[in-house]
């Protein structure tokens, strides 16, 4: 495995006197979709917030692109390539869709304003529905559209890693499918993602690796292919939900595997000269989007 783009090393964290995370380790490689699963209260959201910088780590380190970001403020981390699709979507309800996106690109625009226009164009292409609603206040859109906006708002900043916390929470099943379709499509563009999700069956169709959290420790970590589903089902207490769908899931995985070579070599090439390569992958991403879009419509 090449050097991880995001790495959490031996992190402890908590609130006041109560410790919640105990020596968490997690490494995410370029282009990987890392699923973080666990029961209610296992510490998934706290882990995400430690990565985001919203909760300080008592001990240990968080590294982004090899750089120690443990002491940085959340907005500084965003400037260094962290993107967020927060729990509950959290779009800015009174601002228009376009203003939401412009805010999403806050640090991109500060670094280099000229990169905003192409990034916005790519966003409109990827999310044509949002383009139709660009002048509408975000709060007046449906839950599914807000979820799409939250994803688009994170991607427009061209992040190295996107943290997605429970995208399906509070959404109707049909809309959950839409949201996962969006995430799947995004996954094919080579974006690196950490996904926390209660909807395990849906998550397993998307992720490359699984990290199982249990009372603030990593109980299991490995590639999806090595995941023992009955073990996962037992630990999460959802035996019957995962059983019958295994075959279908394996099928989906095979489809996904086909898509993988498309992105993985590019990712490996990008690894040695990271900074320069990161910029160069942008047009590639846009190209991949164009290719991916018709395929999505076909399914």
């Amino acid at each position, binding site marked *: 495995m090449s050097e991880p783009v995001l790495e959490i090393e031996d992190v402890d964290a908590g609130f006041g006197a109560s410790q919640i995370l105990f020596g968490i380790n997690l490494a995410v490689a370029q282009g990987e979709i890392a699923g973080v699963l666990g029961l209610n209260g296992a510490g998934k959201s706290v882990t995400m917030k430690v990565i*985001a910088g*919203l909760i300080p780590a008592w001990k240990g380190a968080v590294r982004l692109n090899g750089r120690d970001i443990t002491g940085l*403020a*959340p*907005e500084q981390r*965003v*400037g260094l390539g962290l993107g*967020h699709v*927060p729990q509950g979507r*959290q*779009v*800015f*309800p*009174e*601002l228009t869709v376009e*203003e939401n996106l*412009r*805010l*999403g690109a*806050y*640090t991109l*625009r*500060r670094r280099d304003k000229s990169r905003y226009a192409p990034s916005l164009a790519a966003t409109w292409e990827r999310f044509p529905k949002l383009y139709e609603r660009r002048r509408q206040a975000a709060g007046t859109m449906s839950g599914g559209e807000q979820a799409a906006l939250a994803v688009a*708002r994170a991607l427009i*900043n061209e992040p190295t890693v996107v943290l997605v916390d429970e995208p399906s929470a509070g959404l109707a099943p049909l809309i959950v499918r839409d949201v996962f379709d969006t995430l799947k499509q995004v996954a094919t563009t080579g974006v690196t993602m950490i996904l926390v999700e209660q909807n395990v069956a849906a998550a397993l169709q998307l992720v490359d690796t699984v990290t199982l959290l249990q009372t603030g420790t990593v109980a299991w970590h490995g590639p999806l292919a090595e995941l023992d589903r009955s073990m996962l089902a037992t630990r999460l207490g959802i035996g019957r939900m995962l059983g019958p769908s295994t075959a279908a899931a394996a099928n989906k995985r095979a489809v996904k595997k086909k898509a993988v070579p498309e992105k993985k070599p590019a990712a490996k090439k990008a690894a040695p000269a990271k900074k320069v390569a990161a910029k160069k992958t942008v047009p590639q991403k846009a190209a991949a989007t164009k290719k991916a879009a018709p395929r999505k419509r076909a399914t």
Partner: protein
Amino acid sequence: MGEVFVLGAIAGGIYGLFAVATVLVYRGSGVLNFAQGEVGTLGLFLAVWLINDHGMPWVVGALAAVVVTTAIGVLFERFVVRKMGDAPRVSVAVATVGLLLFVLSGELVRVGASPKSLPGPFSGNGWRIAGVVVSPTQALSLVVALGVGVALATLLRRTDFGLGVLAAAQDPSAAQLVGVPVNRVSAFVWGAGAGLSTVACLLVAPGLGAFAPGALGRLFLFGLAAAIVGGLTSLPGAFVGGLVVGLVEASSGRIFAESSLPGVKTLAVFILLLVTLLVRPHGLFGTRESRHG
């Protein structure tokens, strides 16, 4: 009728400035800043000291007063509001009352209770409009109120930082997660709130004649009423609210002569406030409750 309108518009511009300062801080931090009027008054005494006692030009003294009080707002945010972090917003509001008392006692120690006065930036008799003599400073206050409104609207809707201010007002943690420097946003609203309040005090002072520490409290409260009438979260609403309060004040003063019924204007504004809160709690332009706890 024309007289009421002219008087109401002039007073309303001042209330609008106070109200805009209140709304900025409320949107940015979810807190009513009760110290605002007195911080502006402190700026006024600083201007008196520089202009009357040290013979500085009005513009220089006024600018210095605005800069110093803006700094006080920024420092208060940095060392009190930010330190209080996630504390209930009521606690932060109480802290602003603490600042109010601190500033007030500072003024009493330094300048004493005897009233001072400050001339306006221009001399001259002004103009007679609809039977009312409008002084040059009063005319200026209307221009400044309009200018501040346009400048703020431009800043908030056209610049990234301004959009960040609006975003942080709607959802502070989401704003932070898109990369908005929320601490700088917070410093901005507290600083701008204090500075705008000083501008309002400087413009209203010549018309007041003499003023002592605490004397502008009534104007701040009228500004607060204007902010609430306007909806507390809306910047255009703040100016419209200012105008409404100004008109209510002027027409009540016209209907019942103040000399025979002392306090009738204050009573009229108070009734306006009550009616607003009962009939339309979100004010004329307020949308919904701010997300701040």
